[in-house]
């Protein structure tokens, strides 16, 4: 439908234009149908969040809450200080994101643009950390963090996850695409290592930064098991920990749980929405050459 005049392609015959239009509408219908399937679980979460607990499982199946209510949200906020949890999650995710992105960029830059003995080994070691199942090393990690006296502080969540192999991998692949000549020129102008990184490499890496921001914010915002064991004070709990309290020993409050689950997804969506334009470009230039 909209496929017509926007591309500057070679002129087509009328027949193939028509076929193109048919294809385009078929394509649009398929994409919309697929999107509806993708949305259904989320829609059902919304229905659940605004329903009355009892009405959900008894009586006929309804696709719209019979008496929409905010009671689920209300129960969640009365039971637990979710406002505080959101602040905690935000503080952790933002600081961790800033730190991780910086470290990722530094390492990616070095691995892509420097030559030194052991480079290959370092790269393989870093990539190999992707394969460590986190649940298995959690206890020794905890012992270390406890030994450092970090338990019950955000740093216990932030620092151990600050270096992050997938981000470094993306950065390296992306920066391989930055021409050496540009760096060479800066060097000849007398710029130091950090100066080149700051004023040459970073400005060229905006799409990459968009990717890293989206991914690391999401990782830290969603993390559950690790914050749960290092944060032992309700004042410091993150949102996912709060959610786990809504699935109690004696049954689950589905409206409250689904309501808070939906709310907890919003910040990640906002970050994605802000950066999504450069996201595809960033991915396009990393990892895939």
């Amino acid at each position, binding site marked *: 439908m*909209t*496929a017509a005049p926007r591309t500057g*392609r*070679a002129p087509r015959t009328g027949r193939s234009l028509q076929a193109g239009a048919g294809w*385009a509408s078929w*394509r*649009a219908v398929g*994409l919309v149908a*697929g*999107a509806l399937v*993708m949305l259904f*679980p989320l829609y059902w979460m919304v229905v659940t969040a605004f329903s009355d607990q009892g009405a959900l499982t008894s009586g006929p*199946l309804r696709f719209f809450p019979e008496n929409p209510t905010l009671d689920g949200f209300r129960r969640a906020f009365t039971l637990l200080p979710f406002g505080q949890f959101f602040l905690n999650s935000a503080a952790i995710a933002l600081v961790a994101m800033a730190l991780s992105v910086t*470290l990722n960029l530094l*390492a990616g830059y*070095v*691995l892509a643009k*420097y*030559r*030194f003995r052991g*480079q*290959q080994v*370092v790269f393989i*070691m870093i*990539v190999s*950390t992707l*394969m460590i*199942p986190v*649940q*298995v*090393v959690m206890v*020794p*990690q905890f*012992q270390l*963090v406890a030994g450092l006296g970090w338990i019950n502080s955000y740093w216990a969540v932030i*620092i*151990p996850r600050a*270096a992050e192999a*997938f981000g470094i991998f993306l950065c390296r692949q992306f920066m*391989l695409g930055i*021409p050496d*000549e540009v760096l060479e020129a800066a060097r000849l102008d007398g710029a130091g*290592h950090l100066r080149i990184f700051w004023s040459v490499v970073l400005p060229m890496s905006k799409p990459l930064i968009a990717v890293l921001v989206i991914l690391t914010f999401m990782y830290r915002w*969603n*993390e*559950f098991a690790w914050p749960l064991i290092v944060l032992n004070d309700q004042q410091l709990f993150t949102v*996912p920990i709060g*959610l786990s309290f809504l699935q109690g020993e004696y049954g689950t409050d589905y409206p409250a749980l*689904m309501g808070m*689950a939906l709310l907890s*997804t919003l910040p990640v969506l906002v970050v994605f929405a802000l950066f*999504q334009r450069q*996201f*595809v*470009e960033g*991915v*396009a230039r990393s*990892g*895939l*050459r």
Partner: protein
Amino acid sequence: MTTAAPAAVTAPVPRPDPPRRRRVSRDSLAAWGLLSPNLLVFGVFLFLPLLATVWLSFYSSSGFGPREFVGADNYTELFGDSTFWRATANTGLYALLTVPVSLVIGLGIALAMNKPLRGRGVLRAIYYVPYVISGVVIAVAGRWIFNENVGVINRLLRSAGLDGVPWQSDAVGAMGSLVLISIWTKIGFVMVVYLAGLQSIPKEYLEAAQTDGAGRWQRLRYVVVPLLKPTTIFLVVLGVIESFQVFDIVYVLTGGGPGNATEMLVTYAYAEGFDARRQGYAATIGVVTYLFIAVLTALWYRRQRAQEADL
């Protein structure tokens, strides 16, 4: 180092040798300096715990109290442990089901989305949303939606006069629900990466193919898919690594059941470590899982390098 040559955009400029050599030592000092924060974090918070885990795998330990050195007993037990092999097979099956299907669907969506379309940004966001939701939330919602008795899917099926699917009580149903949910979450990411890959295919290739009379399908089969191969390899490896570490969703959705039908390597390690309190044995499962992934990835790495050599 062989991989370090960028796909040259400009013609290679001959580099004068002498000044470069002088810079090497200064450069490598700077390199290590710039890398050091990363290396410190990796070393302290990942490699040390990993070493501790390897060490623990030679002990019998509840996690607290006395531990006992048992040599390779944990490994001997592991190789004779049918649940472990079941978990390995399940994990492999899970990877085999989720990775190819999510790649095919994700590629299809990316192809459809690669041309101008009204509302493309919104559609892209919709497909991407499941990927950003936390595993715990997805699993809880999944348990609710796939509940065999009161879940919306089975209630829909029943109201259509069909039988409900045994999502919880049947091995196939349980693995099915797990795979469906996983695919739902992965599609968005695959789509974005393929979209990126598609953008790097030069338009001239497709136009040339079209003038040669290649149909839509032929262009896809003989031009697009081969050119996307690096993207595909990347996604496969990432998918396999993720599959071998799958935890949250299984732990909450099926708990490994029915029977051991959906027990995975990491859920089994967790159950042994924190339910049965056999931390030494759990460490052993973890170490072997790590090795499994390392071998698979090394195979990929070799293959990729062989391909680069071909280019």
